């Protein structure tokens, strides 16, 4: 088990030669790429910088965790990659194309399961199939047959077998979160964005879901970007952990964490692992106190 520190900011930081939105990404090997991206809200003189100039590359099929103090822009990065938010400057590439233009299938899950209360769990989970091509065109034909089986299989995988006909209010928070994971995965996304999906759960449910999440990742191998406050969670799930500073966020530490899969909960109590999470904790505490001047201009 090694915890190699990879100093950040050593990539050739040349921006695309002002070629406009159709610019080619520099690193064709990376699946997700942020190139000197910033995000600011508001207008002068009340500009809030949510994200300082950030560059980040994620390889296809990797599992990356973003940790850092609250309000540091972790979710901002997630939203940039998901195409929900536009960068104020810099570029965001997914699968070698600029985000928005790309045909990549993305799954997303939040701390709040956001199930639609008027639909059954099955119909909730099936929602992406109704929206995303190529499933969209086949939805009417296959929703009672193939898609239904697909959803049932997924529900069984997360321990929700037989709950497809229930409505969201009939399920506990942990069960809803499982359903939310199913919804994020049902359309077989190449990219999975998780914004503290286990944050509101009790310890035991959370650890159970970590193991389910790990299994799902091993079998399907989507590229995952996980935002979390839980350092044990980051260490258990991710191959790579990025620590962010306080707002305006930037990545202050980026380390690869290699441990054999499937990982066990016992591993998270081993000295090496504990030492790593301790180190991460120190980095985050530093990042919190080290408020750079001019965070609001």
């Amino acid at each position, binding site marked *: 088990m090694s915890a190699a520190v990879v100093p950040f900011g050593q990539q050739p930081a040349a921006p695309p030669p002002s070629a406009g939105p159709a610019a080619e990404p520099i690193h064709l090997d990376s699946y997700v790429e942020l190139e000197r991206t910033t995000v600011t809200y508001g207008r002068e003189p009340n500009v809030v910088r949510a994200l300082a100039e950030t560059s980040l590359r994620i390889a296809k099929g990797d599992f990356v965790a973003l940790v850092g103090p609250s309000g540091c822009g972790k979710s901002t990065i997630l*939203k940039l990659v*998901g*195409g*929900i938010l536009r960068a104020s400057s810099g570029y965001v590439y997914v699968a070698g194309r600029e985000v928005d233009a790309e045909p990549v299938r*993305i*799954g*997303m899950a*939040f701390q*709040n399961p*956001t199930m*639609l*209360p*008027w639909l059954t769990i099955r119909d909730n989970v099936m*929602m*992406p199939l*109704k*929206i*995303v091509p190529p499933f969209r065109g086949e939805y009417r034909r296959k929703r009672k047959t193939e898609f239904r089986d697909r959803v049932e299989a997924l529900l069984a995988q997360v321990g929700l077998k037989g709950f497809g006909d229930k*409505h969201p*209010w009939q399920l506990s928070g942990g069960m809803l979160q499982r359903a939310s994971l199913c*919804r994020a995965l049902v*359309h077989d996304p190449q990219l999975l*964005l998780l914004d503290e999906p286990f944050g509101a759960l009790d310890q035991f449910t959370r650890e159970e879901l970590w193991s389910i999440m790990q299994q799902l990742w091993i079998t399907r191998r989507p590229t995952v970007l996980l935002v979390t406050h839980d350092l044990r969670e980051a260490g258990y799930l991710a191959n790579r952990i990025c620590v962010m500073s306080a707002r305006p966020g930037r990545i202050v530490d980026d380390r690869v964490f290699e441990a054999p899969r499937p990982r066990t909960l016992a591993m998270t109590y081993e000295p090496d692992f504990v030492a790593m999470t301790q180190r991460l904790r120190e980095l985050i505490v530093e990042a919190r106190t080290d408020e750079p001047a001019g965070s609001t201009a």
Partner: protein
Amino acid sequence: MSSTLKRKIASVVLIVGLFVVWEVLCLAFGVSDTVLPRPSQIFVTLWQRFPALWPHTVQTLYTTLLGFVLGVGIGIVIGVLIGWSKLAYDVAYPLLVGFSSIPKVAVVPIFVLYFGAGTVPAVLTALIMSIFPVVVNVATGLATTEPELEDVMKTLRATKFDILWNVGLPRAMPYFFASLKVAVTLSFVGSVISETVASNRGIGNMMMIASSSFDVPLVFAGLFILAALGILLYGVFSLIEGRVTGWAHRKTEFAMG
């Protein structure tokens, strides 16, 4: 279960009790039926003059429902436009508030001027009365979609129409049905007002004529019919609301317009 039954019994007792007290007081103080008729007199009048009252009832119900249906239709369209687009909301809202704050009685003379006395002004008054609660509630329902849910839909590259159809509209349904209860009673009010001002048929008109000839029991009979119709319409739409949007009432109460 037994406690809800108890409450229902109590509310029936209250209604019957009110009539009994009314009856007893009128008898005890010897109130003339040209001032305040006793409930028993009113029911007798209702029974005896039913053949004459019935066409008026049908007319009022007809103008109310026609105006209501048209008003709800227009209300849904405006509500969806306003709830869907921030721009439409900002631009149209002040105008809408202005329209809604005009006392609706004041527009009846204008309708009469344009369309003459009769059915058309009653329908139009019912229509404009029912638009606003529907607009406000549909727009509110659409505007309160959780931002995270919208984010999920956006990452799926859902179109605005996808979001509206799959999330916004179902989410607005409880608000919409709550507004129907309010809107139907308001269109009823609108119809009767218009009939009172300018019409030759309808309960409102009948009550005007009865009062000018001091036929007070008939006036009160008209009032009873209006109350019964109002309860009926409200009840029907409450029932529909409960059936269609039962999921919403397990957790939260919804605002009424």
